[in-house]
């Protein structure tokens, strides 16, 4: 319903720039938690996921949208123009509300040896980035192994991620969102249960 749409960034240029710097820093320093500025996120998206959508997506980025996030489809289409696809294999971004939606993980593009950058980026909602299970991260961006605490990842996440990391330089990059916080796991980082 168009009449019910909430606005995007209050200041589109500055909003996208500051959110991008948070995402860039998050990708460069895996597991570190960043806070994004206020966005009038449409239900059921979190502020962080909505800000990432506004910052990175446009008509060039096919998006696989979690069926449970259907209510946000109009908002995403209006503000970004991103084509929403039902076929994960054709997507550049995937937006998932819960890890149940991650059953599509294996159908997402992983990139090729010659063009590993063609893999998908997954934006995944989690319950919390401050409490929950601890994971130990190691890899580029980390001077020494770092700990990321996440509530809401699947029980076998470390194993799923290890298979993803083993594909390096191919593989999927993950942006975890909870409320107005986000953290990133690039494919280059190794994850084990802490």
């Amino acid at each position, binding site marked *: 319903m168009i009449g019910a749409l909430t606005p995007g960034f209050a200041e*589109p*240029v*500055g909003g*996208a*720039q*500051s959110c*991008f*710097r948070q*995402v*860039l*820093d998050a*990708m*460069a*320093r895996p597991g570190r938690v960043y806070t994004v500025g206020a966005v009038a996120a449409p239900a059921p998206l979190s502020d962080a996921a909505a800000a990432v959508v506004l*910052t*990175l*997506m*446009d008509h*060039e*980025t096919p998006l696989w949208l979690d069926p449970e996030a259907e209510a946000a489809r109009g908002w995403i289409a209006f503000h970004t123009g991103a084509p929403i696809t039902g076929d994960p294999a054709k997507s550049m971004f995937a937006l998932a509300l819960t890890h149940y939606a991650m059953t599509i993980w294996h159908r997402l593009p992983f990139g*090729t*040896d*010659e063009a*590993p*950058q063609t893999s998908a*980026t997954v934006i995944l909602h989690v319950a919390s980035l401050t409490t929950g299970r601890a994971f130990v991260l190691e890899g*580029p*961006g*980390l*001077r020494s192994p770092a700990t990321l605490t996440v509530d809401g990842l699947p029980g076998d996440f470390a194993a799923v991620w290890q298979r993803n990391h083993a594909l*390096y*330089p191919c593989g999927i*990059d993950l942006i975890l969102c909870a409320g107005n916080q986000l953290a990133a796991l*690039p*494919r*280059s980082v190794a994850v084990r249960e802490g």
Partner: protein
Amino acid sequence: MKGYNFAYLDEQTKRMIRRALLKAVAIPGHQVPFGSREMPLPYGWGTGGIQVTASILGADDVLKVIDQGADDTTNAVSIRRFFARTAGVRTTTATAEATVIQTRHRIPEKTLREDQIIVYQVPQPEPLWRLEPSRVETTRMHGLADYGLMHVKLYEDIARYGQISIAYDYPVMVNERYLMSPSPIPAFDNPKMDMMPALQLFGAGREKRIYAIPPWTRVRSLDFDDHPFRAINAAHPCGLCGATDAFLDEVVTDDRGGRLFVCSDTDHCAERRAAGHVGADGLREAAE
């Protein structure tokens, strides 16, 4: 500036570059293609670096631009003014004050911090291009991590000259996976890239490639066990500030064979002189 978007580039272009930057950070050392735009200065003048800087720059950033280490040469001055006009950002020549440093062919002497980003202008992003002219072939080599050709080139240098004869743009291995061109910085600067606390971004405008090194990432200059990598520098102290650990430029001072060796990093040299360090030629200059 009226009539232009903040930092010159339109938002659509910035988003495209930002997406490329995120992939570049996730795959350290891998060259990500991007849709390089026409800029209001020719290719070869830092258009890649400018596009990267324009895509990351915010109103609160403090920008420093250097060209061969100097803040006051044409390329540095014009790019600094470009962003002062199009983005209204504060600019500086002091390395410690900057949040974003765009550079042509040098890394500042002062150790960069975690909260800084360094953007390199890159003329030729492909480290193998002198050895293999075909992009199709070099892309395949990167895919297979097949870098034998470069090792043969280094070996032939040693066989012919007794040493590896690369003084700048010395090839590095990033995260033990990708062979990467560090841009034409002197080999002297290569060790600074290894485990650098700051994020390093590279933009090649004409060649339409972006690549990156996240903070705290292993960057190894290629070498052999019996011919280890050596950072080359002129065997002199700086004539003005007396520094013995800074990269030096050789300046011809007259037509009678006069030479002056000075720090290439002008901010570093000025800071040292302000702190009271004086080199041999600095004394003579004062006496004259």
